[in-house]
């Protein structure tokens, strides 16, 4: 369509698009309201062991309490430290190893068996070693997070690089870009970028999943706060942290989507 509006009824089309967006919004809000209603019912009628389902309507109060108590922001900040380091290191290493695996045959052959042995080990299984090597520390949490992120990026990069159309490499040779560096920068990386970036974006989510689990072991952060809140039966505070995680993930994913769209704006 190349962004051209339908010349016949531009207003009618815009109106219909607006109506459809409104409908989506209303139905979406209705879905959330229905969920909260169900939750409230579960709370009233004790569908779970007494005291383990918080009153949804007290969650805003709990949020205020966590904030005033000086727990919410430090926990978020601490979690972000693990998150950024774990995500950064895992992404970088996954990208480099994936790139090497897909572009150097010797490396590929030397590492595939090792990769097959290590790959199925869940990141959280490494917690034991994280504690042994780094004690209960930021570094330990970042280590565990980076492992999950590493694999996601490793596979995305390796398969993206392998899938670059070989005809482009022929073009590169024909037009003086046959050398290793020129080939990588002019063909391999841009050609594999959609896969590499989608791997990075999956990693942004994957890091959150392991983050909380890594922190449940006692490293300061939202995971630890959830654990200690649950310990005293403050399940409404647990929900506060769950929502905080959801919000931060949505923000970081949205931010990354912007970067991704910008980098891949050449796509139809």
């Amino acid at each position, binding site marked *: 369509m*190349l962004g051209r509006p339908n010349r016949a009824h531009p207003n009618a089309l815009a109106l219909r698009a607006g109506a459809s967006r409104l409908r989506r919004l209303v139905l979406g809000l209705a879905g959330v309201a229905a969920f909260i209603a169900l939750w409230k019912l579960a709370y009233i009628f004790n569908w779970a062991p007494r005291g383990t389902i918080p009153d949804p309507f007290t969650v805003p109060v709990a949020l205020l309490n966590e904030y005033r108590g000086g727990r919410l922001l430090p926990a978020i900040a601490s979690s972000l430290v693990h998150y950024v380091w774990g995500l950064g290191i895992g992404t970088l290493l996954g990208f480099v190893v994936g790139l090497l695996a897909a572009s150097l045959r010797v490396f590929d052959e030397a590492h595939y068996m090792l990769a097959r042995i290590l790959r199925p080990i869940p990141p959280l299984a490494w917690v034991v070693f994280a504690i042994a090597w780094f004690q209960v520390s930021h570094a330990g949490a970042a280590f565990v997070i980076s492992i999950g992120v590493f694999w996601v990026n490793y596979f995305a990069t390796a398969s993206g690089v392998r899938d670059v159309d070989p*005809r*482009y490499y*022929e*073009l590169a*040779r*024909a*037009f*003086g*870009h046959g050398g290793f560096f*020129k080939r990588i920068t*002019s*063909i391999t990386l*841009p*050609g594999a*970028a959609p896969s590499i970036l989608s791997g990075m974006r999956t990693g942004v989510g994957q890091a959150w999943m392991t983050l909380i689990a890594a922190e449940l072991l006692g490293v300061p952060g939202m995971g630890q706060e959830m654990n200690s809140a649950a310990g005293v039966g403050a399940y409404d505070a647990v929900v506060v942290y769950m929502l905080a995680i959801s919000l931060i993930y949505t923000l970081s994913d949205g931010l990354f989507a912007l970067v991704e769209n910008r980098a891949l*704006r*050449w*796509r*139809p």
Partner: protein
Amino acid sequence: MSERRDALLTLDDVGYRYPGNERFVFEGLDFSIGAGEFVALVGGSGVGKSTVLRCVAGLIEPATGHIETPPRTGKGSRPSAVVFQDTRLLPWRRIRANVGYGLSGLGLSRGERDARIDEVLDLIGMADLGKRWPHEISGGQAQRVGLARALAVRPQILLMDEPFSAVDALTRTRLQDELLAIWQRLNMAVLFVTHDIAEAAYLAERVCVMRGTPARVVFDERVPSPYPRQRDDADLNAFAQRVADAL
């Protein structure tokens, strides 16, 4: 056959077989192309005419024989440049950047590169489309950009691999006439691979036909009609018929 011009490109007993394959695709190819000469190489599918072009371009090594390629001349040029059938524009580069793809490493300043890109975009009549992405232009325009990318490196020989076979008939005739006009303006040889006899006869000064297994050049003659040619010219059609017979 008398050589009108000094040979620019010479194939000497050239043969090719795919790695690990005993059977030759073609062998004993002996022919040369003069400076500024327009030669069409015609043959059925699978006869290896695109492979000849790849050998000449230096993209693959012939199994036997020798290819004498043009020497590198002066700053900012390559001896040869390829125009692919599938255009092969890099989708992640804007049109300008695609056109300038072959210009790096030729010792040109940024200003010189920009000037070169403007010049060839102008030549193909796409001066105002340089900012577009490849997916935003038509098939015919993409083929023109592929041509411009090759022209930008000022090759002594332009190697064209069935460049117009994927566009519609109307666009094809227009692109053929544009190519002739550009060839007559620039002093460069053209090796034009095609399976379309009428196209070969209309465009080229000389037509070579490849046939057989392994394939050889079984026909190599000058086209009798002078430029500008008419597509319905009787001499041209008679010549085309002889090419068809050779096939």
